[in-house]
């Protein structure tokens, strides 16, 4: 039975949220052996955009890529095992949480050097355009990444060569603890830069999942039609530390009051409210089972064999 759009979105969002919540719960036990950058509170861009993508499309992102990886269909067991440093992880234990990948699901390896994923995704888009089958690439980046020169260079080149590349700026207003106003003279000018370079852009100021999805729908069909790159900037809110499992509203660099409107407008309970009790309970149960299985898989998996250290330095 094909699931409805609402079911799909709910499932995807809930699956990411719960995966990360469980990850945060496990974290203090030191069984996860990797820095973690959680997307709790800002999953919607990945959920909305990936809902429009198909097999053969690609997504790329940063160290904060659990959401993108899961939304695009990456294996939950393999990403959990990766964070545990196990041989069965999506990178065989060589990448950790910051470097997730799934060529099977169309997830480009994610990168921990801010913005470095952007031109790499453009390279996939170049290959997609060359192949000529209407495939598209979505690259996720933070607001901080838009300050790097290679964001600018990639926008220009993508526009020049009409690459099927969707830039998705997940603007949580922070780079680690530094607010946008300390980093950009025109804090709300990201879309204007893209437009000046020839990349049509849409800004969604309230982080609404459906608004993002509508924008993505228009953008992706333009991409498939070959009219060139598009950009979506979604304002969102990061609820946890930059890195690590906890909340940090008590650290002084931001207040809980700032968070309140975002928590109120959290798309997840809204999606939940729009589902009937039955499909919701079934979906929730499936998610919890998947997470439990993923944790078991990670815990039961063997560590990498020592000789693996020297494998895959070269192809």
């Amino acid at each position: 039975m094909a699931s409805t759009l609402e079911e799909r979105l709910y499932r995807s969002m809930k699956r990411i949220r719960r995966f990360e919540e469980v990850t945060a719960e496990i974290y203090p036990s030191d069984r996860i052996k990797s820095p973690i950058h959680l997307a709790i509170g800002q999953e919607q861009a990945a959920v909305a955009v990936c809902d429009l993508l198909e097999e053969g499309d690609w997504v790329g992102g940063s160290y904060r890529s659990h959401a993108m990886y899961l939304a695009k269909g990456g294996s939950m067991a393999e990403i959990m095992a990766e964070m545990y440093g196990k041989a069965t992880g999506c990178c065989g234990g060589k990448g950790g949480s910051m470097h997730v990948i799934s060529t099977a699901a169309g997830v480009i390896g994610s990168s921990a050097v801010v913005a470095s994923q952007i031109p790499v995704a453009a390279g996939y888009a170049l290959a997609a355009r060359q192949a000529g089958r209407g495939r598209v690439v979505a690259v996720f980046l933070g607001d901080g990444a838009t300050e790097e020169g290679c964001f600018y260079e990639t926008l220009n080149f993508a526009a020049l060569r009409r690459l099927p590349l969707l830039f998705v700026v997940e603007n949580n207003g922070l780079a680690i603890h530094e607010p946008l106003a300390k980093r950009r003279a025109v804090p709300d000018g990201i879309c204007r830069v893209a437009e000046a370079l020839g990349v049509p852009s849409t800004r969604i100021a309230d982080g609404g999942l459906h608004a993002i999805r509508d924008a993505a729908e228009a953008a992706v069909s333009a991409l498939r039609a070959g009219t060139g790159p598009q950009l979506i900037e979604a304002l969102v809110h990061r609820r946890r530390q930059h890195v690590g499992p906890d909340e940090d509203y008590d650290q002084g660099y931001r207040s809980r009051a700032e968070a309140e409107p975002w928590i109120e407008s959290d798309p997840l309970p809204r999606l939940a409210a729009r589902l009937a009790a039955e499909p919701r309970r079934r979906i929730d149960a499936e998610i919890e089972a998947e997470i439990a299985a993923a944790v078991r898989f990670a815990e039961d998996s063997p560590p990498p064999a020592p000789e693996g250290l020297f494998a895959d330095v070269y192809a």
Partner: protein
Amino acid sequence: MSTPEPRVLRYVEALREATDLAMAADPSVFLFGLDVDDHLGIQGSTKGLQQKYGPDRVFTTPLSEDAMTGLAIGAAMAGLRPIHVHIRMDFLLLCMNQLVNIAAKARYMWGGQVSVPLVVRSMIGKSWGQGAQHSQGLHALFMHVPGLKVVAPANAHDAKGCLLAAIADDNPVIFMEHRLLYPTETPVPEGAYAVPPGRARLCTRGDDVTIVGVSNMVQEAVRAAALLAEAGIAAEVVDPVWLRPLDVDTIVESASRTGRLLVVDNGWTTCGASAEIVAAVVERTSETAGIRIRRLGFADTTCPTSPWLEADFYPTPRRIAEAAATLVHPERPPRLPEATRSASIQFRGPF
């Protein structure tokens, strides 16, 4: 009359104290880089300095390493003395054009009309899944380039003295720190003092084998020396402190005396600091010859995140000791004690 206990500081505090002293003494010194002004303050090494010196002299930046490096160079040529901080050395790869094509060459290609008194602080990460892009010791890339200086203090005393020397230097200095050294303590004199280029430091004395360590590997080498001592091998651990210019003489003297040279780098060996040290020693001693030589460094791979793999990526006290013992007794290296006892040795001097 008892001499007073020397004051002990952590490496991270020593860095902060050096910066504070330099900024208080010279208004042309300023400190900037991503996150230097947040509540964590680069692990504490820049904490409170914005409050003290204001946002014109201590400030964070956009994520724009390339331009920010050019900015620092220009400010330095214009007469200021910038300290530019990077939380990982890996990110210097974004600044190579400015550092190598401009900073290193400015004084020379512009006929001596300008100088670039710039300090670039950066930290090497290790453990807990730092992985491929947050763990690199890239000092060799900078040692290669005339016009740059490179320093890698391995203890709190040198962290302060080298940072003060670097700030006072009229040349661009790549200042390399190691995350795992931050909590380590040594006696650190109050007030300003410099640990300038020119003199390597003998950390332990011994006539059987010379072990040169770089950055964090100095501490690992000292631990290895303790292991070796229990097996009756006297290792002389040398810390070059400054990597460019390099005090080759001290290393040549020691290696000529012990007849065995082990260089342990906190980086890859190929074209690395260890290659340079070996080649420099050999060039100066090849007439007399006969020094047995060995290099250790990062495994010749990318750094993996899994702790089971990462454990074999780095030289450890035990592996250093084994390599040294094999240089001393190539046919029948002695059995070494378990590393547990020496693993906790904290390098606290001598000065």
